[in-house]
């Protein structure tokens, strides 16, 4: 029985995140929680390659491999703070601000 505002985090993984101008920030690959007064609260999601490599805990090998494949600037993907995320519809997570502001 799913209560009113219950969200299955395992189904969030793999969902693509779009901003208000329908630009894609990549698929959610990792979700980070923080302990606050005895409760674990979601504080950040990681998308794209950085998320995937974090989840596979192979930032070392992965970063090296992606460097080989020409990922010049950064590995790719975004670290999105919880406050920028809108989960009104958990199947289609949205950004509450343009992608540029995430940086």
């Amino acid at each position: 029985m799913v209560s009113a505002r219950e969200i299955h985090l395992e189904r969030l993984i793999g969902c693509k995140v779009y901003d208000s101008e329908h630009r894609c920030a990549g698929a959610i690959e990792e979700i980070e929680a923080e302990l606050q007064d005895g409760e674990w609260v979601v504080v950040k999601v990681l998308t794209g390659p950085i998320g995937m490599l974090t989840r596979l805990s192979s930032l070392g090998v992965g970063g090296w491999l992606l460097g080989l494949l020409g990922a010049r600037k950064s590995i790719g993907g975004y670290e999105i703070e919880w406050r920028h995320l809108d989960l009104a519809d958990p199947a289609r997570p949205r950004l509450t601000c343009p992608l540029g502001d995430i940086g």
Partner: protein
Amino acid sequence: MKPGKLLQVALGVLTSIGGFLDVGAIATAADAGASFRFSLLWVVLIGTICVIFLVEMPGRLAAVSKHSYADAVRERFGFQFYIWPILAEFVVDFLVLGAEIGGVCIALQLLTGIAFHWWAIPVALAVWLTAWLGTFDFIENGVALLGLITLAFVAGAIVLHPPWGEVARGFVPAPAPHEPAHYWFTAVSIMGALISPYLLYFYSSGAIEDGWGKQDLTMNRLVAGVGMSFGSLVQMGVLVTAAMVLAPRGIGVDQYGQIALTLVGPFGKWGYYLFAVSLGITCFGACMEQALETGFIVSQALGWNWGQSKRPVDATRFTMAYTLSIAASTVLMVVGIDPLKLTLFSMALTAVMLPLVVTPLLVIMNDKHYLGEHTNGWVTNAVVGLIIGLTFVMAVVAIPLEYLGGG
């Protein structure tokens, strides 16, 4: 190294030799020798080098983290990814276990003259009973030590006095002397038989069954390196005897009965029975491994308690998994499907799914959460990268080659 440990290494090496061959290795090596004499020996060599790495790494993973390869792939890549290699592995296990049961049935047909499909159910019951009552040690060591009889192929190859110069040249990679499609299909089948996914799943589970720890890493390396190298000598023996007995007469390998002639050549009457017993024991050992492997991968994928060293009542889901697997595969033989055709088809299918199984190795073997400071060095990583590349090539060419050169 302490005497106890030395004995364990010796046992490990012997069981690697005894357990090296299976129905796929025999069929592909005999076909290679019969069709191309010694010129595919280099494929067995490369395959063996890959096997050494693909056995050492899962053994190390399990010894350090107490998690098997199947565990680690699900834990790291998630269920959405892992569902595909496990479904593919189920299909391949179903076919290969059927072929292995067929191998035992053929051996019994050779010994008794009774048609092989009549033996399917008795063989299946014997396999199930051994798994039900036997511990992992008994199965792994007992059956594999009996497998030492397969050294008859090495003896046969020596007795036939092959032209050692030509044999040596066979270890140098060379293009196809004739029939390129069949040559490369046979090469892919040999690799498919050697680098089979069950190695990763079975050896990591076996290391946990044997209770290996960090102190066993050297033994793991020795057993993998020395054991597999000697083990491949047996497969090379099959290839050389086929090259010496079948090739000159133009006998191709369309049926296991023809492979029996490879030992009848050098040893006459004894050779015939040596072949039948070798085939029977080798395939029986491989049946055990394939059946248990099905139990391992489903239990580890879903997180059940598992273990062949546990009594059936202590791991009922694991036990039922391998029981159903044996029952399902036996149907293939009861309906009389030709074991050799089934073998070659499952080898080609294995080649197609290999990348899905081997690729996660590069991530997991560099994950400190599992291996601490025992992660891969850059040499091993380079070799794994090469193996992954090889498996992708094999996956792409296996089916077209089967169509062009396999039939």
